[in-house]
């Protein structure tokens, strides 16, 4: 698989996929998309980069162990649900704030953070499986 063309293209392709995965994640609240599918796209980006240039560079590039990323996602998702304890409404109630940043109203919500948690959980889990499989391939 390590042809010159693939190795040259793979970093750009992976970068593009990661950016697209974030776009899909943020778009997901009202339109098709969301944390799960975004996470899958990002995990495929890691897998492609891994196929092209080996697993070690991928592990270096994402810095954290994929399992830790997944665990962080679970924590983020759970905490996003627990935030509502401070407002006196049940677990997982969507809470919104509308800060104005550079003159643009940006709706932020606990739902968004839950989705980001799902994103990390999926990236971590699928990424970890993909990298483990690719590592087995190299032996």
């Amino acid at each position, binding site marked *: 698989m390590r042809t010159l063309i693939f190795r040259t293209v793979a970093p750009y392709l992976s970068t593009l996929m990661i950016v697209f995965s974030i776009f899909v994640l943020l778009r997901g609240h009202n339109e098709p998309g969301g944390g799960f599918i975004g996470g899958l796209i990002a995990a495929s980006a890691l897998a492609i980069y891994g196929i092209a240039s080996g697993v070690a560079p991928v592990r270096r590039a994402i810095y954290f162990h994929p*399992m830790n990323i997944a*665990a962080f996602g679970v924590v983020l998702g*759970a905490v996003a649900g627990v935030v509502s304890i401070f407002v*006196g*409404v*049940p677990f997982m109630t969507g809470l919104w704030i509308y800060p104005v940043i550079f003159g643009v109203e940006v*709706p932020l919500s606990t739902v968004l953070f839950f989705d980001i948690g799902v994103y990390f959980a999926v990236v971590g889990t699928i990424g970890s499986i993909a990298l483990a499989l690719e590592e087995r391939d190299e032996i």
Partner: protein
Amino acid sequence: MAGPSEAAIDYSRAFVMEPLALADWLVIAPVPYCLIAGALLMMLRKNAELQAKAAIIGLIGLFVLCGALLAHVVENGPVTMTMGRWLPPFGISFTVDVLGAILAVTASIVAVACAIYAAEDVDTTGRRYGFFSFLFLMMAGVIGAFVTGDIFNLYVWFEVLLIASFGLQVLGSEDRQIDGATKYAFLNLIATTMFLVATGYLYGVFGTLNMADIAAQTRTIDDARPLYTLAALYLFAFGMKAAAFPVSFWLPASYHTPKVVVSALFAGLLTKVGIYALARTLLMLFPDQRDAFADVIAWAAMLTMLLGAFGALAQTDYRRLLGYLVVSGIGIMLAGIALATVEALSAAIFYALHSMVVMTALYVASGIAARIGKSFSMNDLGGLYRSNVLFAAMSLVLFFSVSGLPPFSGFWPKAMLVRASLDASASGLATIILLTGFLTTIAVGRVWAHAYWKPAPETMGTPAAAQMKMTSLLPLLALVALTVGFGVFPETLLQLSDSAAAGLLDPSAYIQSVFPAEGAVN
């Protein structure tokens, strides 16, 4: 997207508008607590030493949460929290009654004991592969199943605990573990599929998944015929999860393969979740259908008890024998569900709590015995009484307790069940319960005679571990103290299990808690 300019919407038609008391958060608190703790421990998995300590402290915290939840429920009746503030039955409700709360408390006690034992039993590799993370994840599943008030959500928690249990089961990656895990996973998946099929059908019939809503509707429905199918499907699915005859064979085939502490956890928790789900669906959701199936359940109960007892008699492996005792205990709980009077159910619930504690303790005892004798086979074991008298005495207490001899906690529920079955003129059931007790006494008597009483065989070598540290006996000591304590002072537990049984048979308080104003919607 809900913008600030759209404030004129009437939220009261979609949202629960009453402010939520902080105490009601106890309903949900154990579940995210377990998830967060498990995830944090996964991040800490490189630090094996810290992990065990953090897990033990974390599980003690879980016990405190569950205890507070039980106190809250005992004081105020069933408590409901509907996620995301949506009005039930549209939001997912968590509804806790005494039954769910007391099972959650017992589960957390079992988890604490297992975590303390695991601190010695699970090596660094096991910890790095996430033993404690899986433990917390499984606790999230188990407690989630006990507290949820939504039948599809119950399915989700079953999945969560199953996934965690698969992980726990293959920890160590030995051949026979994979073998046991395959049987366990495959047969559990069949049961899960049946559960899902039944739930899909149920949604088709009622258009709701909220258990309180369903319970209200089954009592007034015009055409009850589909409910018999539903009840039969649930009986099969949860009967398989609980390891009831004739779908019990997966349990003795898989429970002796994983690490001892994992067996102890499974024996204490997993089958009881099946029994809980069976009681919840058959007694609360489909009471008329349960009456129609009462004979089937009674036969399943009798055969499960006998199969377990005879299976235990036939074993020479300490851990395999315990697997059969788990099955036999399930039969006794099923007998309570078959009779379905307040007394019988109360006895079944009491027995479930007793069984959680005692079966876990017995597996821990088998692990300690194997640590001293380097084997689980009763032929190779011997002289345990000599090598550690305290340990032997505690084992004897557990043997008496699991056989149902006074003054330990196994005695009361069995006595109550015998009386309840005689009251219901089900003398067959009463006979089998007594016979099972007798056979169990012989089976554990054999363990005592072979592993503890007989002189140590040459092959066992010198009992080096005889001077065991007190800490390794600590979890066993705590569990034994519980079974003795509830054997000698059963009143508190009896009151709790009585009110849990009454709540199952008459769910009006449960329904009231989910739909406070109008009784039930629709």
